[in-house]
């Protein structure tokens, strides 16, 4: 009884605050809450989102917590609800914290999206995803094989084993190797404490242990400078390839020196662009039921109906030719 009461009260409050704001201003207002404010990755995402906002004539606001704190994220989410935004997109830190707030926002008629990271157990309408873990794993190995050939030893250096996405990428790489390149052997998977020094150490030791090692793959931007420097210090540039999921800023120097000929990730600016586009589309009464095209993005955007995922597309590959176009 009291539960029903408080729920309907919450809904009423939500509506009460949403209506005047919407009436005030006809411009569609879209908010995005990143996991943390101010880091280059989300700044790049904001640039893409602002570009979309200008082209679509909507207002875009991005505000995130100053540390990866789920309670702060919730507070920011609720403040956007109370300000009557039409669309709130979020890269959730913690699903459970946000679930009730997401439900209340939906009741208030707000379009709620997840973007960059998902809260699959919540009522969010769509997840705007950057790239699938499987695609990231396959692309990295395929690009590496293209350069080292279809046989040889590869060592993997990852960050903490607690980071789930990296575990998924490693699994995808191993799956791809088993299925497509039987002569490729993954000789080791080591986990750093997030310092460049340990990545350097692991890469050096892997090369010592396997004098015929062909490649070292880094699973995190934290590992990239370390593995590339290890190969440079060993004087093996050109003989041992390094590559990984490295932001262009951490990989740039080594992409240019040849120690790390390429890096695989996605383009956060395009992710921001797509997020705003989807938000605006839904506010205008549009639906998403199949793959679609977006003005301003080259690739076809995929719709995966089983989980309501909107997929930006294949991972981006950063090489000497394009790395200077990115700043994150």
């Amino acid at each position, binding site marked *: 009884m009291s539960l029903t009461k408080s729920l309907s009260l919450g809904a009423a409050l939500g509506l009460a605050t949403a209506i005047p704001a919407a009436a005030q201003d006809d411009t569609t207002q879209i908010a995005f809450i990143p996991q943390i404010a101010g*880091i280059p990755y989300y700044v790049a995402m904001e640039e893409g989102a602002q570009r979309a906002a200008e082209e679509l004539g909507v207002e875009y606001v991005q505000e995130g917590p100053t540390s990866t704190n789920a309670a702060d994220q919730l507070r920011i989410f609720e403040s956007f609800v109370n300000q009557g935004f039409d669309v709130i997109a979020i890269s959730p830190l913690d699903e459970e914290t946000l679930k009730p707030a997401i439900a209340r926002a939906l009741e208030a008629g707000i379009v709620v999206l997840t973007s960059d990271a998902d809260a699959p157990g919540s009522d969010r309408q769509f997840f705007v995803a950057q790239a699938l873990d499987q695609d990231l794993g396959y692309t990295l190995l395929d690009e590496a094989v293209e350069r080292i050939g279809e046989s040889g030893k590869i060592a993997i250096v990852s960050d903490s084993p607690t980071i789930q996405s990296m575990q998924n990428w490693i699994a995808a790489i191993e799956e791809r190797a088993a299925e497509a390149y039987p002569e490729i052997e993954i000789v080791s998977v080591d986990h750093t404490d997030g310092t460049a020094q340990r990545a*350097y*150490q692991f890469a050096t030791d892997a090369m010592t242990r396997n004098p015929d090692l062909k490649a070292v793959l880094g699973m995190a931007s934290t590992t990239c*400078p370390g593995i590339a*420097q290890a190969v440079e210090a060993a004087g093996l540039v050109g003989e041992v390839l390094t590559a990984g999921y490295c932001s262009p*800023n*951490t990989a740039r120097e080594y992409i240019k020196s040849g120690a790390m000929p390429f890096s695989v990730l996605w383009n956060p600016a395009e992710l921001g662009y797509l997020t705003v586009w989807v938000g605006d589309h839904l506010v205008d009464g549009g639906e998403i039921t199949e793959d679609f095209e977006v003005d301003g993005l080259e690739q076809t955007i995929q719709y995966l109906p089983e989980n309501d995922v909107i997929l930006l597309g294949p991972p981006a590959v950063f090489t000497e030719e394009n790395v200077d176009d990115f700043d994150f």
Partner: protein
Amino acid sequence: MWTTLTSEASDARNRASVISRPIRIGREVLLLIALGVLVAIFASQSEFFLSERNLTTILRNSVDLAVICAGMTIVIILGGIDVSVGGIVAVSAVLIGRAYQYDMPDMVVVPIGLAAGAALGAMNGAIIAKSRVPPIVATLGTMYIFIAVLFLVIGGVWISGLPNTLSFLVLGEFLGLPSGLFVIGAIYGLSWLMLRRTPWGQRVVAIGCDEHAARLVGIRVDRTKIQAYALLGLFAGLAAVLYVARLRNVEVNIGTNIALEAIAATILGGANIRGGIGSLLGTLMGVLFIKMTQNGLVLIGVSSLWETVVIGGLLIVVLVLDALETRRTS
């Protein structure tokens, strides 16, 4: 060299160290045996372990930790501890990175790194000496502050692509030997002289043995403490210089685990966490043990997740044997 250290130490100190002398030799022998076993296992399982190249690699990877451990040994002999050294390394490294970004030359950048480390260390020392807060708590507090400073300055972004003008200090060769050897030799030689050949060193040991007695005989305990922590900070600043010289970037996680590794190496090496006792040579062996374990496990193909198990396990064995020995002699 070890016997000289021991006898010098005994001469210079009061009866506490004389009583404890057999324990320390036991610890030292134990560590030598452990190192021997470790080398035997790794060498038998990997043909590369004893190669010149790999031994050079181990040495290069040990330089920054070894430098910090010299200071940590002195602080632990003093009866203190500093869990914030990783934070000091981090803050110094960020300042070094920023200074390089402003195109400052090495002769400006290096003093900045060293001065920052010494200043933060002196701050730790002052808090501990003046407030009488237990050092582990005080430095835990400053560690959080140092890490916050790191984030505030670099905001989650790596400083990368720094010049490699100083990398010869770690990666180079001198007289046909790896240059890191000379860096370690210089720091340990200097530390040994300070600890065992100067009145200052005697004061450090006296405070570590019995702080109250040291005060009664007129030793300026607070000043000595601040100096010891500042020295550790200075060495942490030097470690930051060497780290940046070698890896040419400053990452957000810089310094993670280095305090734990430094304390583990120092305790493994025979320093008594209650103060008064410690050996620079033993500490150096502790550093070698940790770095050989990290390197050897990878070479023999054992998951690196076991590394902390090996180091933690030996630490417990050493401490338990030490406790049993203490009980027996007392």
